[in-house]
């Protein structure tokens, strides 16, 4: 579904991605692990068309995404839940969701999607007219996910959705990830919480210093000495 090949993305002279290749199978939950500064967020932004790579290719269902603007990428069916949630703090919950549907013009369908999301996230419904900046961290994360869903994505990219959240909320998020996947949405997520990710993900990649250094199924992850020590070792928090 998504094929990333030899992507190099740089900030000025510093290459954050030094030739990244990976692929996401349709219908899967694919998880990207990696230490701070590995380039995970940079990869997400590059796929989303917000950062432009120096070279390499990103193919999505046969279309080349490199060189396309971010709105084209959204239109193709990729939505990003950005790192740190990045809700629109001064806008209401409903307006945040309307922004998620910015590129759609089917107003009737948008309204019904909104109701469906409110049913899925009742906390958001209660706070529908509240500025998003006043929501709790967990609620903001739900809002960021709901906002991304408003574009009706085929591929949902999530950048550390559990960061800084309480264990119960993290479980809730992983439950939703599983649900969305069963509904047919392919998931590509960055996640440091490998314990949780191991329960839901079908495929793992490890990125270090701008390169993919490991790819494997959950069983292989548990075998890998390096990953075990870094991500499944004792008391390793997010």
């Amino acid at each position, binding site marked *: 579904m998504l094929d990333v090949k030899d992507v190099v993305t740089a900030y000025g002279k510093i290459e954050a991605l030094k030739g990244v290749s990976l692929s996401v199978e349709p219908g899967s939950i694919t998880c990207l692990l990696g230490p701070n500064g590995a380039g995970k967020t940079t990869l997400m*932004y590059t796929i*989303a*068309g*917000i*950062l432009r790579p120096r070279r390499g290719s990103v193919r999505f269902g046969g279309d080349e995404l490199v060189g396309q*603007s*971010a*709105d084209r*990428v*959204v*239109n193709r069916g990729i*939505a*990003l839940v*950005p790192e740190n949630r*990045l*809700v*629109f*703090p*001064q*806008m209401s919950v409903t*307006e945040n969701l*309307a*922004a*998620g549907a*910015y*590129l759609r013009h089917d107003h009737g369908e948008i309204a019904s999607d909104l109701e469906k999301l409110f049913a899925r996230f009742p906390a958001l419904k209660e706070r529908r007219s509240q500025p998003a900046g006043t929501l709790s961290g967990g609620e903001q994360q739900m809002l*960021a996910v709901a*906002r*991304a869903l*408003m*574009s009706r994505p085929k591929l949902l990219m999530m950048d550390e959705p559990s960061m800084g959240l309480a264990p119960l909320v993290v479980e809730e998020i992983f439950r939703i990830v599983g649900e969305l996947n069963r509904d047919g949405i392919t998931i590509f997520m960055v996640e440091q919480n490998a314990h949780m990710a191991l329960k839901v993900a079908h495929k793992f990649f490890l990125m270090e210093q701008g390169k993919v250094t490991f790819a494997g199924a959950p069983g292989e992850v548990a075998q890998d000495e390096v990953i075990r020590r870094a991500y499944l070792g004792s008391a390793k928090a997010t």
Partner: protein
Amino acid sequence: MIVDIVQTLLNGLAAGAAYALLGVGFTMMFGVMRRLNLSYGATLMFGGYLGALLASRAGGALPDAALVLLAAAVTVAGATLAGLYVERLCFAPLRGRSGVAAMVSSFAVWMQIEEFSTWLLPLHTNPYPAPFNVASWQLGALTLRPEHLLTLLVAVLVAILLHRLLRASRFGLAVRTLSDSPAAAQAVGIDAGRTTLLAFLAASTVGGIGAWLVLVADQQVTPMFGMWSMAKGLIAMMLGGLGSIPGAVAGGLLLGVLEASGQALFGPQIRELIAWGALFLVLVLRPGGLFGRAAFDLDIAAHQRL
């Protein structure tokens, strides 16, 4: 005594309504770009100079009313056009990159536009066509000056239109997402470059209308107008809080009232001093402005700017 106070308040609000528009234009640009457009005043001056140029070349040939309307159109269009030039030249190429470089280049363009304007009309003082051959009205002991009424009317109208544009249109949604979180705006598919350009042009138009209101009240334009209008816009914006449109409206009105009160109490020399004094006081006591977000909030947003 009461009448004096009301009269001062009225004068202040009328001047402040024009300041408010100057501030709103400035703050809108900051809101979408997180950069100060240092050639803002110069673009307004350019618009004003085009209006004065029209009067000096075609003044005799046109009926007064037509000249006034045409000058208004030329001034607002000139400010918007100059805004287009500045955005394309200074801000669009550096979007997502060095904010300082963009601001410095807008400073250079300030000088450029100012030189060009004074080349068009080399005299220091240039008459600006104004619609006020009308005498002031007396309402009891109050004097209602026609330019004050015009300013208040136009400013309220512009504020309502702008509010509707930003709250109830798709373009407004895009502008607000971009001011709130540029990375997320792009993640939901908002074309940041195009939205920034259009918002910049809308802001230049609002500023141009504010400039026109000042110029018809003054009935003249000088090379100082660029600096002057930027100072007023800057103070209105900072009093209200960087990036906040309602803040800039309140800041502009407050500035107008403070200046008018200062002038009434201590004489005209004190006017400018009061304005700058108020700015420093607010910045020290409430760095985020009276109504805006705190300054550090904006710094964070600036770091997140892609």
